[in-house]
C-alpha cells in the first residue's frame, strides 16, 4: 500500500487557476522521491498537501491511509509527515535549540521525560549533539536547517518533505543536509525532496516533474533526464552526468545514460581501463600547464587597463575592542562549530586582503558562508570603512569623502535578495529612488527608468504603476536590479544574484549580465556559490577563506587544486571534477583543467579510440 496517495487531486488558491490540476501519484513507503519543476509549477502546493496544510478541492489525498481532507485526521497526518522549508530562519520558533526541537512533540503532548530523550535522539540524527543549549541565532544557515530537520524528526514522523531546503545553503551545508537525508532514508524514512538542483535529483530513486500543476514526467532519474528537450521546455536543466553521457553517445561512445556522477565515472573508468593500460608517456602531465600556455598566447583581457577597485592590505572587523572582550568572556568557542562554517567568535571579518579589479573585467568571488564576501562588497563601494588598510576606486582613495560619494554612484551594488529592499508604492517610484537621491532632473529620471527597465527586459509602461509587491519573484528581482541600473553605474557588484531562481530564470539572468558587459562595457563583480557559473563567466576568481585571501587567478588556475578547495568548503566545476576523478583512477586526458563539457566528451572519445587502436 502506498504511503502517500494522490488521486486526481485538484487545488486552487483563488478559484480561477489550478495550482494542482489533477495530480495522481502513489509513493511507496521507504522511497526517496524528488520533485522538480519551474517557479510556480505547484511543487510547494503539492508538498503542503502531503502535510495536510492544504486539502484538495477535488479528488483525494491519502497519507498513511488517512484522508487529509477529514478534519479529524489533520493532526495525525501532520505528526507523521514532517516538513522542512526553504528559509532556515523562517522555521525556528524558539531562541534556544532544545526548545525549538521540542516544539513539535510538545504540541503532541509528549510527557516531559520522554521529550528530553526525543530531543537528544533527534539532534544526534542530524549530527548536532551537544548543541542543546546554544542560541539558535548563532548558527550558520546549514546548521539552522539541520535544527529544522531535527525539530521534525523529534515528532518521529514516517515521511519527511523538504521544500527546497538546501536552496539557501553553501555547498558544504548542502552536502551535509543531503547526507543526513540519505542516512534517514536508509533507516526507512520516506523522503520527498523538492529542489532546483538537478544534481540532488540524481540521488533519488524516483523523479517527478511538475508543470503548471500537472505531472509532466515521472520515473527513475535516468528515465527522466533522458528527455532533455522536454526538460528544457519545462524550465529545467539536466544534470552534468546526463549531459556528459549524452555528449559521449553522440560521439559514438557506447555508454549507458547516467544521472548520477559516481556511476558514470565508474562506467567510464571500466571502459577506459578495459581499453588498455595507460601508456606511460601520457601520464603526469599537469592539466593546467596546458591551459595557461593557451591563455598566454592571447594577452589577458585588460592587462593594461586601469584598476577600477583596488584593495591594499585591507582588514575589517565589525566589533570595536570593548565588545570583543565582553564576548570572549561570555561565549567559549567550541571546536565543533568550526566544522560547519566560520566560528562566530572570530574577530576579523576580513584580514589583510590585497587585490584589484580591472576595468571591463568579469570578476568572481567565492568562499564558504561567513568568509566575508558580503563584507568585501560593502567595502568596495565605501559603505563600510576598512579598519586598517585602504580601498581605492579608479585609483583614488575611498577615505576621501567626495571619492566615496562618487564611487557609491559609479559602482552599483545589488545585494543578496535585492527584492527584499523594494518599498515604494509603484515600480516607477522604486526604480526612480536612486536617481532622485542623486538629484537628477525629471527628464533624466524618466529616461533612466526606461533604459533600466529595457536593460532588464521588463515592460516600462505596463509595469509602471503596479505595486512591486504584486509582481512575481523573478520580476521583483529584475525591478530591484533596474533600480541599481537606473543610477547608470559603470560597474556592477552583485551578491549571489541568482539564489532561489529556477534554472531557466537563472540562465536568463546570467545572460543579462554577460550582455551588460559585452554591449555596455560594464565591469562586473559577482559573488556566487556555484562553481560552474563562476568558471563559465569569469575572467578571474578570488577565493576567500575565513576572511583571508585563499587564491586569486584565472578559473583554470583556481580550479586546478580540487582537494585544497574542498578543504575550504568549496568545490570545482563538474567538468574539472570529472577530469580529476579520472586522473585519480590513472586516466589522464589530453585537455586542460577547465574544459567545456563538449571538449571533455571529445577528449574521452579520442582517448578511447586511441586505446582501441593501440590494442
Amino acid at each position, binding site marked *: 500500500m502506498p504511503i502517500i496517495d494522490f488521486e486526481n487531486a485538484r487545488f486552487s488558491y*483563488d478559484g*480561477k487557476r489550478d495550482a494542482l490540476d489533477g495530480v495522481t501519484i502513489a509513493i511507496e513507503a521507504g522511497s526517496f522521491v524528488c520533485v522538480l519543476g519551474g*517557479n*510556480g509549477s505547484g511543487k*510547494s*502546493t503539492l508538498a503542503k498537501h502531503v502535510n495536510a496544510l492544504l486539502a484538495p478541492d477535488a479528488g483525494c489525498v491519502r497519507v*498513511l491511509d488517512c484522508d487529509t481532507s477529514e478534519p*479529524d*485526521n489533520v*493532526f*495525525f497526518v501532520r*505528526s*507523521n509527515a514532517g516538513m522542512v522549508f526553504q528559509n532556515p530562519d523562517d522555521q525556528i520558533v524558539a531562541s534556544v535549540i532544545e526548545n525549538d526541537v521540542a516544539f513539535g512533540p510538545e504540541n*503532541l*503532548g509528549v510527557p516531559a521525560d520522554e521529550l528530553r530523550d526525543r530531543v537528544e535522539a533527534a539532534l544526534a540524527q542530524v549530527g548536532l549533539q551537544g548543541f542543546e543549549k546554544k542560541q539558535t541565532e548563532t548558527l550558520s544557515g546549514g546548521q539552522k536547517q539541520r535544527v529544522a530537520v531535527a525539530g521534525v524528526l523529534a515528532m518521529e514522523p514516517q515521511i519527511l518533505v523538504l521544500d527546497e531546503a538546501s536552496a539557501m545553503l553553501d555547498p558544504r551545508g548542502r552536502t551535509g543536509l543531503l547526507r543526513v537525508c540519505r542516512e534517514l532514508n536508509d533507516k526507512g524514512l520516506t523522503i520527498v525532496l523538492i529542489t532546483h538542483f538537478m544534481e540532488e535529483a540524481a540521488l533519488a530513486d524516483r523523479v517527478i516533474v511538475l508543470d503548471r500543476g500537472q505531472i509532466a514526467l515521472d520515473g527513475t532519474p535516468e528515465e527522466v533526464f533522458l528527455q532533455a528537450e522536454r526538460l528544457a521546455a519545462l524550465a529545467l536543466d539536466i544534470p552534468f552526468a546526463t549531459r556528459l553521457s549524452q555528449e559521449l553517445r553522440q560521439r559514438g561512445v557506447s555508454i549507458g545514460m547516467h544521472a548520477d556522477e559516481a556511476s558514470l565515472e565508474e562506467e567510464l573508468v571500466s571502459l577506459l581501463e578495459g581499453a588498455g593500460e595507460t601508456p606511460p608517456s601520457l601520464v603526469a602531465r599537469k592539466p593546467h600547464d596546458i591551459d595557461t600556455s593557451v591563455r598566454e598566447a592571447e594577452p589577458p583581457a585588460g592587462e593594461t587597463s586601469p584598476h577600477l577597485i583596488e584593495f591594499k592590505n585591507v582588514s575589517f572587523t565589525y566589533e570595536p575592542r570593548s565588545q570583543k572582550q565582553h564576548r570572549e568572556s561570555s561565549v567559549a568557542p567550541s571546536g565543533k562549530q568550526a566544522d560547519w562554517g566560520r566560528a562566530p567568535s572570530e574577530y576579523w571579518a576580513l584580514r589583510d586582503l590585497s587585490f584589484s579589479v580591472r576595468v571591463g573585467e568579469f570578476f568572481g568571488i567565492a568562499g564558504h558562508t561567513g568568509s566575508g564576501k558580503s563584507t568585501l562588497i560593502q567595502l568596495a563601494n565605501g559603505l563600510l570603512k576598512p579598519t586598517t588598510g585602504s580601498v581605492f576606486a579608479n585609483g583614488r582613495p575611498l577615505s576621501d569623502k567626495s571619492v566615496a560619494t562618487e564611487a557609491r554612484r559609479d559602482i552599483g551594488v545589488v545585494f543578496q535578495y535585492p527584492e527584499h529592499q523594494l*518599498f*515604494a*508604492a509603484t515600480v516607477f517610484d522604486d526604480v526612480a529612488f536612486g536617481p532622485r537621491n542623486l538629484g537628477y532632473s525629471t527628464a533624466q529620471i524618466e529616461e533612466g527608468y526606461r533604459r533600466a527597465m529595457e536593460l532588464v527586459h521588463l515592460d516600462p509602461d505596463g509595469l509602471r504603476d503596479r*505595486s512591486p*509587491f*504584486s*509582481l*512575481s*519573484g523573478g520580476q521583483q528581482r529584475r525591478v530591484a536590479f533596474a533600480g541599481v541600473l537606473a543610477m547608470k553605474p559603470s560597474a556592477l557588484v552583485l551578491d549571489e544574484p541568482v539564489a*532561489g531562481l529556477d534554472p531557466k530564470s537563472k540562465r536568463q539572468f546570467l545572460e543579462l549580465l554577460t550582455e551588460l558587459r559585452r554591449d555596455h562595457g560594464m565591469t562586473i563583480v559577482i559573488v556566487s556559490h556555484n562553481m560552474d557559473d563562476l568558471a563559465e563567466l569569469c575572467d578571474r576568481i578570488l577565493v576567500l577563506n575565513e576572511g583571508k585571501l585563499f587564491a586569486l587567478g584565472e578559473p583554470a588556475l583556481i580550479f586546478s587544486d580540487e582537494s585544497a578547495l574542498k578543504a575550504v568548503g568549496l568545490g570545482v566545476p563538474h567538468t574539472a571534477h570529472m577530469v580529476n576523478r579520472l586522473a585519480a583512477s590513472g586516466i589522464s586526458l589530453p585537455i586542460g583543467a577547465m574544459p567545456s563539457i563538449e571538449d571533455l566528451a571529445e577528449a574521452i572519445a579520442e582517448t578511447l579510440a586511441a586505446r582501441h587502436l593501440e590494442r
Partner: protein
Amino acid sequence: MSTSAQNQSTQIKNTNRWSTKQLVTMALMCAIAILLSFLEFPIFPAASFLKLDISFVPSAVMGFAYGTGPGILVGIACAVAHGAITGNWVGCLMNIIACCAFIIPAAAVYKRNRTFKGAMIGLVISIVSLVVAACIANLIVDPLFYGMPFDVVAGLIVPAILPFNIIKGIVIAVLTGIVYKSISNLITPAKDQVKGR
C-alpha cells in the same frame, strides 16, 4: 499505526483566538516594534533626551489589519519587552497607556469604515487621543513616581508635553498610513499574486 496515537490526534483542536498565521504576524510586528523602540530618533538635536519613539507604528498597522485586540496585544507585548530589557517598569506603564490611547480609536474607526477616509479620520482622532492621554499620564505619573510637583508638571504641558506629543502623534500617524498602504497588498494578497519563493 497505533490507534491510540490516532485517537489522541483526533481530539486536537486549535484553541487559539487567532489563526497561527495572524499570531505569527503579530509576533513579528512586535519584534519590529521592539527594534524600533531602541532606535529612538531625536526630534530636536539640542534636546536629545526627548526621543521620538516610533514603536507604535507596527501595533497601529496591526490594529488596521486585524483589529483592535491584536493591535493592543502587540503594543503591550512590545512595551513589556522594552520594560523588561531596560528595567524601567514605570516607562512601560506609560507606554501601555499611550499605545492603547493611540491604537483603539484608529482601529475602531477603520473597522467600521474601511476606506482611505476612514483611516484618515481614525488617525486624526488617534493623534488627539494620544495627546490627551499623554498629558493626563504625565500629570499622574510624574508627581507620583518622579516626585515632580503637580503644578510644575501642569506648567510644562503647554510649552513641552503638548508640542512634543503632537509631533510624535503626527509622525506616527503619517508613517502608519504610508506603511499600511504600501504593504496592504501583502496582508490580503491580490488574486494573481505569485508567491511561494
